[in-house]
């Protein structure tokens, strides 16, 4: 048998949209096969076809040499195909072993079963304690639970959807060791990702999709990261580089800021200090859920801070609300687009009004000048290449990437002296992410300060001159990137959790 899974000419349409157009790919036994593509390229549709949750319109599949057309995911699992989803389906209040047993059929939770979990965990280097409650585990450990649950079904093919998007660098390299062991043991892996460096590191073959079509089946090591990215987005990528790093005086500082969270599941911020200089890009790295949301609320001014903790251009801004902060030329892009940075049920033009600097002339004495608002909206749409039929389109009807471009544009046309942005390219396709990164760099080159909070470490590393790590509500000092910087960041990200 040459191929474990053969996929021939799969086509699947939703109305006029061909989500998969004549896609073929073959997965060899014991192989880690990458499926690459931007959002909307058709990766998920193809995976759903393989996993039995969608029926293709045309095309056929062969599994272990025999015709294969799963009726539902249950059927797919029966035949030896398992999947680890990007969003875990675990019960936080139950223990690891309870979670695992719930996902399997025909087994009972007894000592024998626990033994089995420990065996698997040793065999594949998946460090886990079966008796621990899942709610206490780090994201990486939860993923290990999901993987063990899949492995106990003895799959011949494991599908992994964006497995590293939430992991620290150390967890990523641990995961890779596990994946290699699995592949050597005869289980092939379909690895869905848009992180090209990782794909080049671990995958021996790659299939690239774009707009539902098969672009290329290739060996990732034969191509540079940039070539792969360009195949993925179908156009040239612009290299990111600061043309003018000319940092000036201190413009914004946080001093010993602490804040107890009102939310039961919130994170308390402890003694956070940081300063940002004019013309510099400062990054706050860290795994999501370590106080990023809480910090962002304080920075935007949705919650006020005690006197002396936040200062901008030499003045205390702790008790100003976001609108008052904008008057000083401080602008914000929150992580959550719908419902926070934009009102889902309002048009883009109306959404412009969320961020109103005095000089913009969108309002005078509170009366809205819709003509000017429209002009500004059109400017954002054209300058930042927002794909929309009109400025009146509801925010919720735009794709994530387009809405993000709109939100970035809305703040950038104000030429902020300080821009604070959380997850600037979260869920955004590679082409748009590239544009957003370029725009941020251009802003800093002009002498503005930028503070980026992101869990995408690659993004932080490629943009920022000064990097801090947020872990369990505490912010590290700036990391010295000259001496083992990456390792230090990795350790700081893990904090005391593991």
């Amino acid at each position, binding site marked *: 048998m040459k191929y474990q899974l053969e996929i021939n000419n799969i086509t699947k349409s939703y109305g006029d949209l061909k989500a998969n157009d004549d896609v073929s790919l073959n997965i060899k036994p014991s192989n880690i096969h990458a499926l690459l593509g931007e959002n909307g390229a058709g990766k998920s549709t193809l995976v759903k076809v393989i996993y039995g949750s969608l029926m293709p319109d045309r095309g056929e599949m062969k599994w272990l040499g025999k015709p294969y057309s799963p009726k539902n995911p249950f059927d797919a699992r029966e035949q030896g195909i398992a999947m680890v989803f990007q969003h875990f389906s675990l019960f936080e209040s139950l223990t690891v072993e309870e979670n695992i047993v719930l996902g399997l059929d025909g087994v009972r939770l007894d000592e024998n079963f626990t033994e089995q979990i420990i065996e698997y965990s040793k065999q594949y280097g998946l460090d886990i304690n079966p008796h621990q409650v899942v709610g206490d585990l780090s994201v990486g450990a939860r993923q290990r639970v999901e993987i063990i649950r899949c492995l106990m079904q003895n799959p011949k093919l494991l599908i992994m959807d964006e497995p590293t998007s939430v992991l620290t660098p150390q967890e990523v390299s641990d995961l890779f060791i596990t994946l290699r062991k699995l592949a050597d043991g005869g289980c092939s892996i379909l690895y869905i990702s848009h992180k090209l460096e990782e794909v080049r590191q671990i995958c021996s073959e790659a299939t690239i999709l774009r707009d539902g079509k098969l672009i290329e089946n290739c060996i990732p090591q034969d191509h540079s990261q940039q070539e792969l990215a360009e195949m993925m987005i179908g156009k040239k990528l612009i290299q990111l580089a600061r043309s003018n790093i000319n940092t000036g005086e201190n413009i914004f500082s946080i001093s010993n800021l602490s804040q107890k969270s009102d939310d039961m599941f919130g994170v308390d911020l402890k003694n956070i200090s940081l300063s940002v200089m004019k013309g510099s890009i400062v990054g706050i790295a860290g795994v999501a859920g370590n106080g990023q949301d809480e910090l962002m609320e304080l920075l*935007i*001014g*949705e919650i006020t801070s005690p006197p002396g903790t936040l200062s901008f251009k030499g003045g205390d801004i702790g008790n100003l*609300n*976001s*609108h*008052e*902060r*904008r008057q000083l030329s401080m602008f*914000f892009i*929150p992580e*959550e687009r719908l*419902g*926070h*940075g*934009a*009102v*889902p*049920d*309002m048009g883009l033009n*109306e959404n412009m*009004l*969320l*961020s*109103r600097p005095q000089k913009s002339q969108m*309002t005078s004495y*509170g*009366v*809205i000048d*819709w003509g000017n608002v429209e002009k500004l909206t059109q400017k954002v749409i054209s300058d930042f290449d927002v794909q929309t039929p009109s400025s009146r389109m509801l925010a919720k009807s735009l794709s994530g990437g387009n809405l993000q471009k709109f939100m970035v544009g809305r703040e950038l046309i104000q030429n902020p002296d300080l821009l604070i942005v959380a997850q600037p390219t979260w869920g955004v396709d590679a082409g748009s992410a590239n544009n957003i990164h370029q725009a941020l760099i251009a802003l800093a080159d002009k002498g503005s300060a930028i503070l980026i909070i992101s869990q995408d470490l690659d993004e932080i590393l490629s943009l920022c001159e000064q990097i801090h790590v947020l872990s369990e509500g505490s912010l590290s000092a700036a990391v010295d990137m000259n001496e083992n910087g990456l390792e230090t960041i990795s350790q700081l990200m893990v904090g005391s959790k593991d």
Partner: protein
Amino acid sequence: MIRLIPRVENSNAMILLSPLLALTLTAITAYFIFVSILVDIQVSSVFYTLFLEPLNDSYYLSEILVKAAPLMIIALGLSIGFRAGVWNIGAEGQYVIGGIAGSAVGLYFYDVEGFWILPLMAIAGILGGMFYASIAAFLKTKYQVNEILVTLMLTYVAVLFLSAMLQGPLRNPSGFNFPESRIFHDSALLPIIWEGTRVHVGFIVAIILSIVAWFGIKRHILGMQIKITGSAPRAAKFAGFDDNKTVWYALLISGGLAGLAGVFEAAGPAGQLTPGLPQFYGFTAIIVAFLARLHPIGIIFSALLIALTYVGGENVQIDYDLPKSITQIFQGMLLFYFLACDILIKYKVVLFKTIR
């Protein structure tokens, strides 16, 4: 199982037609109700009395305008609150307190003549309504007390307070102990704009207020603040809108307008303060606001429609001995069908078998 799935696109035609559809469905249901309860009476003649006679007769027509004015004014205020997600359902209480406050001013200047008395009464009425709504605003912003409960319960307090006032300080000294105030003198009575009827200047004020509210919602940042707070509270915080202030604005505006409607009722059709001041306008205005989809101009039309059911309802009471609740049944059905139509415009119903 039945499931509602959001439609990709809402039909504009249906959005405009749904009030008519709701009206038709109400009429059909009403037909069956009448058929089942009426004995020896033609259903068609009841229908005529209910819906058409008021439109054919100038007296009834004028009464529609009289009743539409307070409904419009109250509904405008409520619609602003509802847009912000502030559920003031005690406009009836604010209306009563406004009526008492305005009447008290009118009665205080009983033997004074002056063009300034009416505006002063109107201001007193607005302040009275605002004060009454501010109790709910204070409790909500300070202690997170639900405004629905506070405003609703304060309505009963207001009605009892009216009663106390009419038994005490505001009672007509030469009124044989009837719990009624003196009849207002001319300076304290609203000018009549349609000779020979009870249609007063309040109707024009209501129309002007609708246009002002429309402008405010469309063109003023305060309108945006209210809309954004109602539809995405976190985005409102991001924009720097203070949500407590929004609650205050919403309750002060709706309370003030309800209070104004209260004075207009006392100084207009009633001409004095009586225990009959509360006429359910404060509650009916909720229906008016929703029938108009909270749109200020739409409120003009929905208020007229609901006023028609009031007048028609009174006529069938007189002509056919039908109970008073006929009016409320109509209003309730109308709102029910309208909301149902709106849901079906936004969502489609999908039936499917459960998969085990």
